[in-house]
């Protein structure tokens, strides 16, 4: 290779080639994906997250929860996602249109959270999640810095965690979630993809591959 300008142009052609293909190609396909209006229920899906849930997503991002949790359910038959109760359908692009920072995640050291609030038969509630965050479980560390261990002055707080056993606060003290913990839990409880879009109806199990 002798020609420097040819090398130079070739480099940019190479980069532009994959950029145009992957980035522009998918952008043309998905950039204007709208919400889906359901005639039966008289409202559009997905729902916009509330303000406090949007703040909670920032906490999720700042603690990099995506290092251990994915937010993408694979289609029934491809992996055990459905059998684990994470969702009866695969996640589709439309589920994410209102998320400011999409956190698909690369590792499942903990369970998937895409449809945490829509899990069947039972989905966790705010008290479950706050207790889990405070105490940790299995490989999940305790996020005690999201809580305040303070002296009860006057009336005990309504928000204080009701803990038992070794986690119980010392007498005269209480453990109260900080606004960050409250926002994070509000975000987690906003994760619900139980509405079925036309494009997300589960593929027949006969087409499954790699299933166990």
């Amino acid at each position, binding site marked *: 290779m002798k020609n420097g300008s040819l090398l130079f142009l070739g480099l940019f052609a190479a980069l532009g080639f994959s950029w145009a293909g992957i980035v522009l190609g998918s952008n043309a396909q998905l950039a204007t994906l709208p919400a889906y209006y359901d005639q039966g229920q008289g409202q559009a899906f997905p729902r916009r997250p509330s303000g406090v849930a949007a703040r909670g997503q920032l906490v999720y991002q700042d603690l990099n929860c995506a290092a251990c949790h994915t937010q993408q359910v694979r289609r029934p038959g491809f992996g055990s996602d459905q059998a684990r109760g994470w969702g009866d359908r695969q996640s589709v692009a439309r589920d994410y249109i209102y998320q400011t920072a999409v956190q*698909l995640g690369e590792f499942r050291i903990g369970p998937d959270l895409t449809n945490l609030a829509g899990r069947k038969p039972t989905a966790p509630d705010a008290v479950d999640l706050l207790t889990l965050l405070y105490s940790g479980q299995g490989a999940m560390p305790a996020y005690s810095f999201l809580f305040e261990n303070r002296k009860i002055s006057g009336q005990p707080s309504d928000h204080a965690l009701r803990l038992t056993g070794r986690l119980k606060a010392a007498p005269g003290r209480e453990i109260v979630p900080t606004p960050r913990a409250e926002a994070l839990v509000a975000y987690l409880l906003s994760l619900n993809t139980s509405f079925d879009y036309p494009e997300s109806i589960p593929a027949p199990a006969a087409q499954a591959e790699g299933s166990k």
Partner: protein
Amino acid sequence: MTSASPTPSPLDETAIETAGRDPLVFLLGSSLAWLLVSGALALVASIQLHRPEFFAGCPIFTYGRAQALQETAFIYGWVANAGLGLVLWILGRLGGAVLRAANWTFVGAIFWNVGVTAGLVGIAAGDATALPRLEMPGYAQPLLLAAYGSIAVSGVLAWAGRRRPVMFAAQWYAVAALFLFPWIFSVGQVMLVWVPVHGVLQAIVQGWFAQSLWTLWMAPLGLAGAYYVVPKVTGRVLPAYDLASLGFWCLLFIGGWTGGRHLIGGPVPAWISTVAIVTSAILLSHYLIVWLNLRGAFAGGGNALRFIAFGLAAYVLGGFVDAATAMRAIAVRTQFTWFDEAQQQLALYGGVSMLIFGTLYFAVPRLTGRPWASTGLLRGHLVLSFLGLILLIGALAGAGLAQGADLANAQLSFATIAADTRPWLRFASVAQAILLLGNFMLAVNFARTVGCGKIAAVKEALVS
């Protein structure tokens, strides 16, 4: 002269060495400091995986942040500084002229390291973007881009003003890495941080960014050194050199397309992962050609070549594992598990980092005009790196296989999975400690080698 054995005249080399020494030594020195920082953080994050209570009360080192910190320090601290320092040195030598604009490189290198520091402080303080390979907060990124431009000036001048029109493979890879990083980095910044794209497109752009950063920047940084050192040390023409340009263009044109393999089964258009699967297979021809060209490294001949031989084997093996795990039937088991991490460590640490170590061991004595201060430390680093990497990759792969099998069985809870992977992850922590110790030996050896040079220079100045 054959096109495969670059041998500039000795006179040129001496001149290049003295003129460009300080900024390059600074780049290499800071890279080693970041390598130690990243190693310590990797150890913390690794211990947290089998002892979740370790540093759990400390928000700065909570697992998510520790993981982001170690990855950032490794890529933007270690690989970037060392890779750039060595690539500039190679471009200077092969250009056959004194490295010009060395001051630009020096200033750029200082600001690059300020930027990486700002990025790490930002992540620790909670401003991370949570985008894999681009975790640094938005405010640190423009500084890095500007600093990179300043560092690259001397490399661009050395390449554009080269004495010989013919370019060697080492120069292609060096120039590719030098020119393409700013574009990849600014696309990532603009489309993900400043004006984020819509919904799930973020994941697609992030996949493209991460893969381009790997195939068009980090891998070429490592390969440039290997393509320079192997013919120099073996003193032979590279075998199958005619194929080298095919291997180069294959990597460049195909590399960016393979990112979608991490999105298999994800909420993205199916063509993205299908294209990634096909291109991962095509990319195997690049790995084969690199293997054919550089297989002389296995013939032996010094410690630098031993590092390069290990790096070459890991790089090629990493490519094959990458292509295998891109297959949907395999991906369903390995996706989201430690096996993916094992593959990444194999390619990035076992492959590129070891190639950089080898080039570093070859370059520093020529750059400073002194042999390595301690052969014992060099051998120690070699042994600990080999041992640590084999243990780390083996442990992560074992953990990944156990985790993949357990995840496929919906009856097993995450507590069971954690218990099944814990023994493997303990081995991974031991491996991280071994690697950290080895890298500490390299840093001490480097400091002593450079320090001796400085002391001798001062003595000389006093005497004359």
